[in-house]
Structures are given as structure tokens and as C-alpha cells.
């Protein structure tokens, strides 16, 4: 289990990173925390010709509140964001979901943007991004653009990022008055990728529920404020739309059942958390 050979570029400025990606395109991979890329390299599932290490770029190693969003730069590690002052007040959903991301030892190295860019359908941070309606900031030597989380994820491990683009930052909307947030996940072991993960945002006029671990990407759905019966039916329909599948750990029917039950519970919990 040793990686195939690659060149290693230690970018020292954002422009250098862009230039490297522009020069090597699909042959290059961005190396940030490395917590998912390194196993793929060692298993030789990924064989990039060039790795572009962006962890020395001070300009993207920051996070902070900008207007009504938390902007998290590409160099910010998951553990750093988890320790953000009053994160549970700034964005409760992030505070609730981050402890479910891997283990403390991988959060210490893994980056927030790296998890988003990797786009595992069972990962928590992509789910939170979609649930909150956050955005991905992509930059390259050519241009900069913002893509809504829902459009960024295009399939398992697949995103709207072009080969020369860097996920420079992601933005999570901050907590909004009157909104409630809840997160629940079921995995077979603590710290595993989810079999079903549910993130809900409750408003006065309804709720938004996002599901991870079931479809080929995190998927969100709006549920209008309605009585319990129609919510149950709507959740049932949602569970079928997710295209659940069987694997060694759980059946598709089981995943749908959890979407219905945990989805319901998490919406109710978000309702109760509204402040």
C-alpha cells in the first residue's frame, strides 16, 4: 500500500497554487489535510502526476464571520473550526455536526474544504453545507466563482469543480433569528461515515431537511409547515426519491425507514430549537 510516484509542489501563494493547477489540470490533485487523499494514494485509487500542497498559504488559512456567513478558507482544519468561539451560537448545525466528522485525530488534520471537495455522499460537512444552503468559492487563474452547495455536488466523489479550480473557501450561513437547527446520524460505529445522516433547519414557515448517506450526494428538500400526516407522507416520498441501495451494512429499505423516522425526529427537534 504505497503511493505511485508524483511530483510535489509546495505552493507558497494562492497565485502559485492557481498556476500549478492551470498547468497540470486533471493530472494534479490539491493536498490539504490529506485525510482522504492519502488513503486513496496509498491504495493507488488516485494516481495524480502532481500534488499541490496548499497548507502553507496564509491567505486561505483563516475563517471568520463575514456579514451573515461563516467563511472558511481552504487551509482551515476541522478541529480549528470546531474550536471557534461560540460556534454553537454562530451556527449550531456546524457545532452539532462537526463532532461526527471522523475522529478527533483526523479532524486535527483534515480540512473543512477538503471534505467538501472530496464529496463523499456520506460525509457530514457536505450535508451541512447543503442543509444550510451554503456556497463553495472556486478560484483559478482564469476566474473566481461561487457555486451553491446543492449544485456543487454532482455525484459520488464528483463535483462541479473544474480541474484547474481550487476550492478556496466555503461559506455557511450563520444562525438566523427564528430558525432552529438539528443534526442526527446513524452509523454502525462511532466515527464511521453515516448510513443515514439528517440535518434540519426549521423556520416559521416550514423546514428544510437534508439527507446524507442514502443518495449519491447530500440531498435537501423543503417541507412546508403542515400537519403531521402530510409531513409523514412527504418524508415517505422523499425517502423513495433518494435512490437508496443495498450494501453489506444496510438494505435500501432500512435506509428509507431511517430517513422517514430520523428525518421526522430531526425536523421536530429543529422546531423545538427555534429561537
Amino acid at each position, binding site marked *: *500500500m*504505497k*503511493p*505511485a*510516484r508524483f511530483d510535489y509542489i509546495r505552493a507558497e501563494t494562492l497565485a502559485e497554487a492557481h498556476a500549478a493547477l492551470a498547468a497540470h489540470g486533471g493530472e494534479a*490533485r490539491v493536498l490539504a489535510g490529506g485525510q482522504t*487523499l492519502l488513503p*486513496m494514494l496509498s*491504495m*493507488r*485509487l*488516485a*494516481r*495524480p502526476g502532481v500534488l499541490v500542497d496548499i497548507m502553507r498559504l496564509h491567505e486561505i488559512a483563516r475563517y471568520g464571520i463575514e456579514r451573515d456567513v461563516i467563511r472558511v478558507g481552504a487551509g482551515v482544519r476541522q478541529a480549528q473550526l470546531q474550536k471557534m468561539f461560540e460556534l454553537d451560537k454562530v451556527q449550531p448545525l456546524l457545532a452539532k455536526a462537526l463532532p461526527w466528522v471522523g475522529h478527533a485525530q483526523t479532524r486535527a488534520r483534515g480540512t473543512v474544504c477538503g471534505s467538501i471537495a*472530496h*464529496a463523499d455522499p456520506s460525509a457530514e460537512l457536505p450535508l451541512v453545507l447543503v442543509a444550510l444552503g451554503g456556497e463553495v468559492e472556486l478560484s483559478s487563474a482564469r476566474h473566481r466563482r461561487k457555486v451553491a452547495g446543492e449544485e456543487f455536488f454532482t*455525484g*459520488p*466523489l*464528483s*463535483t462541479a469543480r473544474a480541474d484547474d479550480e481550487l476550492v478556496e473557501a466555503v461559506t455557511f450561513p450563520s444562525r438566523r433569528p427564528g430558525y432552529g437547527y438539528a443534526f442526527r446520524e*446513524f452509523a*454502525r*460505529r*462511532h*466515527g*464511521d*461515515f453515516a448510513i443515514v445522516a439528517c440535518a434540519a433547519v426549521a423556520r416559521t414557515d416550514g423546514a428544510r431537511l437534508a439527507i446524507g448517506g442514502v443518495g*449519491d450526494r447530500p440531498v435537501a428538500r423543503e417541507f412546508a409547515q403542515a400537519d403531521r400526516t402530510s409531513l409523514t407522507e412527504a418524508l*415517505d*416520498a422523499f425517502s*423513495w426519491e433518494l*435512490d*437508496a*441501495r*443495498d*450494501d*453489506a*451494512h*444496510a*438494505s*435500501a*429499505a*432500512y435506509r*428509507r*425507514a*431511517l430517513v422517514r*423516522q*430520523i428525518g421526522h*425526529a430531526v425536523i421536530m427537534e429543529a422546531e423545538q430549537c427555534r429561537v
Partner: protein
Amino acid sequence: MHAVTDKPPGWLGRSVERLEDAALLTGAGRFVDDIAPPPGTLAAAILRSPRAHARIGAIAIDAARRLPGVAAILTGADVAAMSAPLAAGIKAPLECWPIAIDRARYVGEPVAVVVASDRYIAEDALDLIAVSYEPLPAVVDPIAAMQPTATLLHDKLGANIASDRSFCYGDPAAQFAAAATRIAVSVRYPRNSCTPIETYGVIAEYAASDDAYDVTANFMGPLSMHPVMARALRVPGNRLRLRTPPDSGGSFGVKQGLVPYIVLIALAARLAGRPVKWIEDRLEHLSASVSATNRVTKLAAAVDADGRVRALDWDQIEDVGAHLRAPEPAALYRMHGNLTGAYDIRHVCVRNRVVLTNKTPSGLNRGFGGPQVYFALERLMQRIARELGLDPLDVIRRNLVPTGAFPYRTATGGLLDSGDYAGAIERAVAQGTLAELRARRVNARGQGRLYGIGYAAVVEPSISNMGYITTVLTAQERARAGPKNGAFATATVAFDPLGCVSVQIASTPQGQGHRTVAAQVVADVFGLAPADVRVLGELDTARDAWSIASGNYSSRFAGAVAGAVHLAAQRLAAKLKRAAATQLNVAPDDVVFAGARAQARDNRDNAMAFSRLAAATHWSPGLMDAGDHALRETVFWTPPELAAPSDADAVNSSLCHGFIFDFCGIEIDRVTGAVRVDKYVTMHDCGRVLHPGMVAGQITGGFAHALGAALYEEFAYAPDGSFLSGTFADYLVPTAMEIPQPLMLHMETPSPFTPLGAKGVGEGNCMSTPVCIANAAADALGVDQVELPLLPARLAAHFHPREEFPKGTTAATAVAIGARQGDGAMTLHGRGVVEIARVPQDVWAMLLDAKTLAAIIPGAGAIEKLSETHFRVDVTLGVGPVRGDGHALVL
């Protein structure tokens, strides 16, 4: 027999700090990959079959051979030319090689070995080897494999059944006819493995001048595999020097599976003309090291109305995977003498079949045969209670071997050495507060929660009889082969010229603290402190005392090896006492060793330093008895109780039999189906306890393995034989968050058959815990059938509301969107549905057309038609960061 032995004064029985730990805690351990190999050592990497079953055509190695740094490439043809198959315990036309020769029979089977200057380059070279595979149908289910129409794994065998033996003890037919009822269970035990955190490692050298191999490997024994390896390498036994490193990172049986790799890497070293080192990686370990057997068992009991069992009828189908690898089918026979468990059942019939399937070959794994047997037996006891409307604990109690009946000869020939099963159960019920647990169940159920209680009573065999495996042979076959029996343990104790004590043991410790306990034993005999005694745990077959039974398996250390250490130390002590008697002017019997001194029993001032006495034997041999000057004693100890199987196939398969009684309360989550172990009580009688801390460690460690087997771990295979548990993200080893702390209870009835009265304790919970938890789950759900591992999805199926298809869809379309089967963990799948409005024959014709295939398979390049139904398609897959060129074969 009730008495708990009084703790003798001394070191044994105390939880002294381990002598091993200072090095291990500071990073100074010496594991196989830490040892500096000989200069010029090269690294090996192994190319493995991605297919469960295929004929191997050409293996193109030229490109790999040309890669700078590559020294040699070994394929099946080289291995066939240089060696012989690994011998097995069954006389059948089966050849077991350490590498695929012309045919791959499981995912992960070695196909080629690259030897290169380092592991990175060796893996680069693997990428450059092109193997032509012609796929064959794979069979993964043992029942399917037994069908006459099943694809054959080994053509010469003519079937996939390697052995089919029936046994009868007493008169079970009459008992079944006379009993009130026949109650049966039909169960499957899954595949799993204890996966030590350190993987396999081998460093091999070949000396052409001597035609001799020198191998260092973290092999755990049994050393009965040494002759198997020497024969495979086609050298006399004294030309295979096998050594083990000082430390080994856990084994639990699994490092017995090094045998084929020792042979393979030794051959690679010979071919390369240089020493070769191979360190297995985790992916190799999970897919292709070794697995416990999966087993399909039908077990029926002839039962009286009060739950008394008169007879058992066993039908066991053992799935050993793709090859019958020695010592298999031992897992099927290890429990033969105790197939009646903790129960007094005089009539037993057994049918044992050994079946081959396209899965990794099986081998030793903690519990070895026990989890499979007790899963059936203790599920049966619960079923009897359920069908007869009795309390499961009462059914257990009613059938126990009576207190006072020990040593008890079982129907199948086992000799249960000691115990008080009823007494142990009553203590556990009281000290583990079963009544309170029952109240908890009533309360939980009152709230609508799914709460269940499970029980398991288990006899834990240890110190296996080297002859038990021959029970698979008929009496005539055994007579021809010559009797096999016994269980040699060896130990050496010696003095050096400064009077210091050294001990060497052939138990190849894998982390259990053997060195500490051996030091305790010797310290007690000589009146020293354990830290004064140096114990070597590494084994060198060229220099040390060993026999075929040597090694670290069958929980044999405390009973056998520590006993041999004790006997060796006592022999030296007797000699020293005679020497001291002369100097102290007392009778030898009046010499006492205590406080690092030899002293007169009645006058402590009449004494000399122990080291001076022991050293004097070097400097003044005249002090010693004439003719017995040896300052070093080696003991070979084997118990007479371990006789060869009788002509009637009765076998005392193990020397010692500990007793375990477990009960637990579990709750199943109404939403997720996840099991929470609320309380777990485990009562052990493992004879005399030599080191309570280590006994506790064996119990908590075994419990963790067992909980993993019960709830999380499975080597899963898709129907086509692809392996679904290839990483530690797929094969789920429980963490500190999943393993609760069991309540451990003890009692001691010493074994009359071991020198120190100790029995094994390392494997029992792997036998008792999976079925105890399964019984609790069956109780919680009120169902007859539960399957391991207790996947939340499987349990939830019992109580999740029935799904209704969404409005606007039909069942067919809903199933099409919702229930596609069989994606492997590493399989990448596309989305989208191709609608083909044609009759099936047309679809089939289209799929058999190479051009059409190229059009509909994403990324398909060249397509080669191999036969009417087989195509080879070169595929480039690109999903996210994953880009790979591979050869996909489409059936």
C-alpha cells in the same frame, strides 16, 4: 471441589507489573518490521487475484522485470518447480499451494511476487504485470457448493466436499424415539477474524551452499507446521531454521496463517539470491490472510417435557474456503470431545462435512471451532425453553454435568477435568444480580422497549491434543498413519556464572505476558523477584527446545507452558538444594529458597546468597552430585490424558476444560435496530489464576472480539465472490465507544491435570458471548431466528413498519429504484436507467455483441470476445479523484 484455592505465598496469583511493558511503552519493542534485516535485503510485494474464480492464462512480467530496482518475479510456475504442495490432514486429491497455479480460487490469492529494492518500487512493478484471467463461475455459499451441479474448485476431487464423516456415540436413535419431543435449530455462523493490529511479516534467506532456509517471521505456531513447511520447501527439517522476533503485535490464532507466506517468501529469496522481506499490508490481511470458518449447522435434541436433553444430533457443514490448508479441518474437530458442552448428554450422533468455496482459506482464530459449536448448542437450549414454555436458565441448570462428577468422561470421549458448573451459575446469578436484570426487563417492556436477556453456559477447552485432528480420518486410516497424541510443552531454565537465572520458553508470545508469568513461576521456586529472572520468548528452531505442539494457541500457556517452566525450575532447585545442603550442613529437604537466599529451614541465619550458590555450580562443579552437573534443565512435558482417538472415534480433544456462564441484558433501538448492551456478566472458572490482571485482560479482550463478532464484524462476500470487507472502513472493528465493560466474576477449581492447576482462559468469551447476545436479541424480539452479526438493518426488519410503495409507482418500478443489489464497497456505480423495449432474447443478443457493449459501458475501450459468453473489456473509469485503467470482464 467447591473450594477456592488459597493463594499461596509468593508471586503467582498476584498481578505484578509486566516485565514486557517498559520496552513496549517507550517504543523500544522489537517487532518483525523493527529488526534490522541482513544487509542487502530486498522487499517483496504480492500481486493478488481480483477474481474469485478464474483460469490464469499468460502472466506478462517483462515490463515489470525491466523496471529499475526489480530483482526477481516469482509466479506459480516457479513455485511449482521449486517446491511441493503444503500437506493437509485429509487424504484427498487436493493440492494446496501458497500461490495460484494456473487457477485463482479466491479474491486475494497470490498470483505473482515481485522482489525489488524497496516496497514502493515493488508495488510499481505490480502495476506493470498483466495477467490474463478467464473467469469461472464462483460459489460462495457452502450449501450451494455441495450441489452436484456446482462449479468445481478442485477438479481432481470431483466434488467440493473434501470430507464427510459420521459418528455415533451411545444410542441416539433410541433416545430420539423415546423422547417426548425433537427440537432443532438451523444456524449459520459467519466469517470473521480477530485481525491483530500488526500484520504478517517474513524475512527469509536461502543459503545455496547449504541448501538451507533461515526465516524470521511473527509466526505463532503451532510448530507442527514446521515439518509441513520444510516438506513444501523440499528440505530436511534441519535445513529450515525458523525464528520469531522478540515481540509480536497480537495474533489470536491469525498468525498461524503465515505458513504459506513463509514458504512463498522463502522461495522468493531463493529465486532472487538475496534475503527478502515481506510485510503484509492491511488490505492483504483482510482479504487474504486467514478467516475463521463459516459454518452451517443443524442441531437437534431429543428432549423430555421438562427440558432434559437425552441426545443430540449434529450436522455440521464447515466452509474452509478455497483450499484445505493445514491444520484445517481442525476447527471442525477441536470441539469434538466437548460437543455436549456443559451438559450431561450421553447419546450423540454427528455428521461433519468439509466444503470448499471461493473464499479465503480458513485457519486458526480465537475460539477456533468454539464460537460455531456454541452458537448452535446454546441457541438450541434457548429454543428448547421457548418451545416448552420453560425458563432458559432452568433448561441449562437441568442438563448440567453434575457437581461431583469430575473428572467427567463425555459421550464423545472428552475428559472434563474439574469444575462446579451449578455452583458457578448460582454464584453468577447472585453476584451478577440477575433478579435485578429481570426486573429491568419487565420495566423496559412495560414502556414498550425491546429488551431481552440472554444466557450461555460454555465449556472452554484448552491445551489441545495433537491427535484430535486425526478424528477426521477413519480408524483404519489412523492406524496406517500411526498414532498422534499428546501436547508437548517445553521450557528451559539455566544459571549463568554470576548465578543469574535465564528462562527460555517455546510459547511464541503474542502479547499475553508469558515472560512475566514464567518469571513469577521461577521466582517462586528460587525465592527471587520476577525482575531477577530473564525470560526469552523468541524462538529459534535451530537452538531451542521445541516440539510440534510448541506455539501460542489453544490457550496452552498457563496450563502447559507455565507448568513446564515450573517443572524445569524444580529440577534445578532439587539439585541446588543438594549442593546447598552440603554447605549449610542440613538435609536437602531443609534447604529453603527465600529472599534471594538459600537458608536452613530452622535457622534463617544459616544461609548463603542464592546467586552465590547458583554461580558456584559453574565455579565448583564438585559441589554438585556426581554425574548430574547440568546447570540448565529442559523439560518436555506432555499429559498422559491426551490419548489418540479410540477405534470408536472417542477423543479427549483437550486437556483442560474451563467453565463460563454468561448472561446479559440488551436493548434494541426501536428506530435504528442498534443493539445496546445494557449489562454483561461473565463468570469464569479457569482453574488456578496465575496472574489476575492478565486473566482479566484475556477476558475483556476476548469479550471485545466476541462483541465484534456478535454485532459488527463480518468478512462479507458478494454472490460472485467479490470481497466486500477489504478495508478497516468496511470490516468494522469495535472501538472504545462500542465495547462496554463486562462484570467479571471468578471461581477456581484447579485442574488436576496441569502442574500448576491452571487452565486456559483466552478464548472462552469468543465462544460464549456471541451466542449470549444472540439469545438476548431473540428474547427481545420474540423470534426464533437471529443471524450474526446482528446488523441493525436485519434486526429492524422485524419491527419496522411494512413499506408501502409511494403513490404513482408500481411495485416493479419502486423495486427498480429502491433495491438494487450487490454493489461492492469499492465498486463505483453510475446512475441512470437504460430502457430497452425489446424481448429478452434480443437483449441477450445485444449484450453478447462486442460493439454494443462498447457503446453502453462507460469508458469502455478495446473489447475482445473470448468465447460466446465472455468478453474482455478494457475500461477507464473516472469518478472524482479515482482514475484507473483496468480490465473488466463481462459475462
